[in-house]
């Protein structure tokens, strides 16, 4: 079976400007929502307590809320988690709260409340000092990834490639985060891991295209830069679609079977993979072109051997 039997190169670069305008727009919108709405950060970053409770049959959320309010937790958020039989309780850190006893006290007050008997499934308590650290560590990881990849690409290819790849892929990252801000999905450590994994993965996509660009520059003479880029992208389009399709199948399996815990992780990956294809083709390549890549940068002029005169 073959999906792509492209004999002539698709003129991607002719539309480069339009795509870049679309990208810039998407980027601006994403930034706008991140600034406007902010992220719905998980307990890991904000500090607080999270308790997951399972019931044999669906409890009334209102009962749970009342029981908690009566026992001194009026600021507890209660919501269903995954199914109607599971609930998630979130509580912010407060100075007057004895954090080490929260889970026991919540369980005893819920057991006393009317309705089915609760079963403790999961507790996460994060103290205020840990949350801040996790946020800085996350930022450090992001910086390390950016500089690491830029340095490697600059070494293997050319600074123009490394700059374009990073810009294209940061654009992906911002768009994923923009989605999380817009829908107010929970941004947890796992999502951060997914975002960074996507960053590595999308760069990989750009690398594959750049590899082909370099090869085409070296082999084929007499092609203009846009033609070279078009040729490279067209040659790789089949592989791009199949690879991303395969990875997407895996990620969708996670989205379907992975349950609530992996949900946002898989969602971040799905968005990241889809935008990864787009940005490698329509963002990275035009950028390379505009940064002024040319054949001379890859084909080293042959040094004339000096004849020794005896």
């Amino acid at each position, binding site marked *: 079976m*073959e999906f792509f*039997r492209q004999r002539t190169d698709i003129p991607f670069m002719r539309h480069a400007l339009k795509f870049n305008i679309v990208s810039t727009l998407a980027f601006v919108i994403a930034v706008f929502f991140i600034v406007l709405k902010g992220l719905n950060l998980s307990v890991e970053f904000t500090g607080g307590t999270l308790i997951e409770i399972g019931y044999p049959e669906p409890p009334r959320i209102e009962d749970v809320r009342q029981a908690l309010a009566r026992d001194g937790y009026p600021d507890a958020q209660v919501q269903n988690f995954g199914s109607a039989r599971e609930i998630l309780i979130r509580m912010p850190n407060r100075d007057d709260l004895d954090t080490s006893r929260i889970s026991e006290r919540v369980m005893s007050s819920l057991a006393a409340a009317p309705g089915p008997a609760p079963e403790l499934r999961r507790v996460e308590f994060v103290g205020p000092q840990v949350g801040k650290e996790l946020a800085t560590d996350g930022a450090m990881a992001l910086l*390390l990834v950016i500089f690491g990849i830029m340095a490697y690409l600059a070494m293997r290819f050319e600074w123009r490639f490394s700059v374009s790849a990073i810009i294209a892929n940061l654009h992906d990252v911002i768009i994923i985060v923009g989605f999380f801000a817009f829908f107010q999905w929970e941004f947890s450590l796992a999502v951060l891991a997914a975002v960074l994994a996507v960053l*590595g993965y999308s760069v990989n996509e750009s690398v594959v295209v750049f590899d082909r660009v370099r090869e085409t520059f070296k082999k084929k003479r007499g092609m203009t830069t846009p033609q070279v880029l078009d040729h490279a992208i067209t040659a*790789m389009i089949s592989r791009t679609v*199949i690879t991303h399709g*395969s990875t997407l199948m895996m990620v969708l399996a*996670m989205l379907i079977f992975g349950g609530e815990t992996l949900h946002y992780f898989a969602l971040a*990956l799905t968005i990241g993979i889809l935008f990864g294809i787009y940005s490698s083709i329509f963002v990275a390549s035009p950028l390379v072109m505009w940064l002024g890549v040319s054949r001379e940068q890859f084909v080293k002029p042959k040094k004339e051997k000096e004849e020794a005169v005896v």
Partner: protein
Amino acid sequence: MNRYPLWKNLVIGLILLWGVIYTLPNFYGEVPAVQVSSGKATLRLDPAAVSGPIEEALRSAGISHTGLFADANSVRFRFDGAEAQIRARDIIERTLNPDPSDPSYVVALNLLSASPNWLTRIHALPMYLGLDLRGGVHFLLQVDMPGALTKRLDSTAGDLRTLMRDRSVRHAGISREGNAIHLRFRDSAQRDAARSAILNSTSDLQLVDRDDAADDLKLIATLTPQAQQTMRDFAVKQNITTLNNRINELGVAEPVIQQQGLDRIVVQLPGVQDVAKAKDILGRTATLEVRMVDDTPGALEAALAGSVPFGTELYTERGGLPLLVRRQVVLTGDRLTDAQPGFDGQTNEPAVHLTLDAAGARIFRDITRENVGKRMAILLIEKGRGEVVTAPVIRTEIGGGRVQISGRMTTVEANDVALLLRAGSLAAPMEIIEERTVGPSLGAENIAKGSNSVIWGFIAIAIFMIIYYTLFGLVSVIALSFNLMLLIALLSLLQATLTLPGIAAMALTLGMAIDANVLINERIREELRNGATPQAAIHAGYDRAFDTILDANITTLIAGIALLVFGSGPVRGFAVVHCLGILTSMFSAVLVSRMIINLIYGRQRKVAKLHLGQSAN
């Protein structure tokens, strides 16, 4: 040209065989077991001494165990069924703890891997599952370093007062202000005398002069950075040791107690559901008491007969001898500033050196002067119950706060005693700053969800690859399954913790790994399209795709390593699997798939057509 030399085939084959063997233990599941660990801080578990009587008792009861495993802290017996396990537990309990009210050992039910002994012997163990997969409690504890520092400075201030008095240096007050000790003097001659006295007696303090007024001269003493560092390391290590002793009591199969960062301790208790009890144990404080031994003739005999004289208590010494101790407390652990194992300066016998603070030294001098020739007992009080750590005889009056306990001790014992003394006096307070509890049902669910994702994703990719690339697709899928196997084998070998994010990383890595094979297959198709012969196309396809695969994987690896360096908790679990998966996928996608392709096509002199799912041009 498409043939690997024999050695290359052999090496790849051996690596795959290794992968099969180390993956195996993961398929055997777990069987019931009984675990024995020490139940008292003062009791060190000796596996050889304990397992003998247990085996004897089990044999006489007609229960056979299927394996004995011993490590430094516990002995574990494996059984065929739950029934044998429960019966064995009761028998072992009776054998080891004749007195149920004062158990010396903790006997707990447990699960052990059911893999055959030969696998266990070559250290082929199942993957180490994280708490989110097996259920249990995770705590992150922060050691209160400022608190420990304050405590240390307070006792140092006391020591300095004593020093000044001993050297007859007149001062106008010594007090702790924040993280420094201020010594006040009226004239500079006294201050100079004080400075030299301090510098001669300790190297832990650094001194700075400050003149607030002509008659208000100050010497500001702070701990040197080295001394602070030592103190910090010491506080964390001390707390870890104490925690180790206490957690044994819970009978947890594989507790993890590790230092994290400068001043934090991670405690993971797999399988523990009783969080309240776990917290009690973590938060418990032990105290140390020094009391006098009652050696009135006949009193001990009377006590043993059942009538303990008024004002005394009956204890058992290390070694099993009974000891009658007065209730009155002479000195508590607060006065002890240090306890170190070492050697007697004259006899070279193992000894424990204690350091008392100024007030403690005074009390100790008085008590030893009045009781030469008598015995004192040092007790560790935990859960309201005391244990005799040591009961030395007082030989002479001891002044100056430096005490040495020696005689009838081995080096190991000296170490233990020092440790216990510190446990009761020096442990810096700790605070729980992170807690994660996962119920057992959620753990099992997480495993099912994670593995379902991997399996279904894998099947989807396999079907697609085989339809799209036919034979080459099949080879890619075989290579991908070897990749999964090697990844599991590697995780089992390293005993890296597998968490739910780790399983997610496994799925993601597999999804990404197929990229290499897609690149290769596409390249071969392209070469064919450009008119290469089948053999040349295979060769060129693998060769040219390799550079791209390498570049692509290295960039992904950079992201993985960044996560590994800066990630903690769930992110780290993800990163470990992700990084390992990139390495195994390079191997299997390039070398293994090439080997299979070579075996299929490499031997044929003339290949008419490659089964690559490509329609004729």
